């Protein structure tokens, strides 16, 4: 059974990076990645594919809608089943962490991403399910 993960980041090269970092998992069908370049795009995607997406990884600092705002919208719009949302930020400051927790983020990660750690977290959330 594959887990659909939505990655939201305004950096386009995040996409090939994730695809390569998780090439084994993608190949084996464990994970299925989708990408959005902005919070707005992510909401559109969720609107169409809400039931499929299990886990969302979102950058916080994006032009336009921020990751925190996206998180608030997700928590507001999609109560059942609540997707797992992990926030990523370059500014590993307490305020962002605090806001993310307050708005209901399941996890808070800082850039540069430790992909091994990220994998561990992903597996732990999937097993929770």
């Amino acid at each position, binding site marked *: 059974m594959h887990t659909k993960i939505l990655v939201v980041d305004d*950096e386009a*090269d995040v996409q*090939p*990076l994730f695809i*390569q*970092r998780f090439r084994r998992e993608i190949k084996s069908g464990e994970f299925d990645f989708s990408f959005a370049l902005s919070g707005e795009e992510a909401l559109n995607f969720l609107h169409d594919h809400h039931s499929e997406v299990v886990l969302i990884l979102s950058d916080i*600092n994006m*032009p*336009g809608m*921020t990751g925190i*705002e996206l998180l608030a919208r997700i928590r507001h719009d999609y109560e059942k089943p609540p997707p797992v949302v992990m926030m990523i930020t*370059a*500014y590993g*400051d307490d*305020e*962002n962490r605090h806001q993310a927790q307050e708005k209901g983020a399941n996890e808070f990660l800082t*850039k*540069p*991403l430790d*992909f091994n750690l990220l994998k561990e977290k992903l597996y732990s959330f999937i097993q929770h399910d």
Partner: protein
Amino acid sequence: MGIFSFLAIFIMVRRVQASFKFSPLRAKWMPQFTTVTWMSIGLYVLAQAILKEGIVLILGGGSLLAVILLAEKEPDFNPFNSVIKAHYPLAGVSLLSGIVLIIAHKFYNDYDQFFIYAILAAFVWTLARWATTKKERAELNFVTQQNQMLDKLVADRTAELTKQKDELQQTLDLLQTTQQQLIQSEKLASLGELTAGIAHEIQNPLNFVNNFSEVSMELIDEMEEELAKGDTEEANAIAADIKQNLGKIIHHGKRADAIVKGMLQHSRASSNTKEPTDINKLADEYLRLAYHGLRAKDKTFNAELVTNFGEGLPLINMVPQDIGRVLLNLFNNAFYAVHARQVEAGVEYKPVVTLSTHQKNGSIVISVADNGTGIPGEVKDKVMQPFFTTKPTGEGTGLGLSLSYDIVVKGHNGAIEVQSKEDEGSEFFVTLPII
């Protein structure tokens, strides 16, 4: 009666001598004055004792005439010319009286009172002339003194003015130095604003460089495994991925490189070298730097960035770091304005900063618009003035827009204009000629 001519000589010498009192002429003429004085006294005493009245008169008149003629020739006595001339009647009358007395003794005796009156009148005339000369000279002296006082006054004032001018020059030099320092510190201040943005901008490409390098190493391990298994097709596919990754590494390495170079350019005092520049690229770069710089300082801040880049714009000859500073300043102002309004208006308000470029009448127009607080009408004319700022003390130097104005107008023959409506927003237009 001969005494009057000698007396006149005596008085003349004394008076002239007295008026030379404080002049170098006194020393020059002193021996002559003494000689003539004593000679006139001696001659009179001698003549009176041994000669007849008629001869004494002729001798007196002649001596006087001689003194007059000698004195008139000397330029040193020019100031006394008119009064010396006044002695002619006395000399003439004395000579005439003497001659008449000798050759027509009887006639003289019959009319001697007329001769005596004439001599007396001529003598009194010389005295009167001396008296008026004294008054004139006194007036002249007064005027001279006044002139000297005025000269001194003028000299004093001139010295004072020169001193003031020197002091002002020093102050001006000091101000110019301070201005240079302020410009430099304004540059450094904007560099400070940039630093956070730059750190963010560099961190992203560095993360990609690290990540793509790491993943490529893993891929090489996998490729070796596939080759060992003999699956060349899969190995080739992995090789293509590695190649793509290396391309990404190069791309992001260059991106970080360009950011560092831009940062160095920005902090450089001034290079003033104009080079053909892609305005869209430059403006976009500085928009990101300004935005991330502000975000790094205030994490709660957020704004929607809208860019409308004109397509096919020609390269513009400019000093890129200078125009970059202008744009950075405009972006920072725009963000400041929307942030200020966001604090007042709350959640309902959506801050938007719009960057647009387009070509118009041989120029390129860069517009930076915000929907922030706007500029009140009464300060709109002042925003380009040096040291004018609406920011709290310590937050703005008040030099940003005035330096921007100098860079655009003086440095690039361009124009910078502003349209603004309070509580609706502002739009700044930078126009740069294409040539």
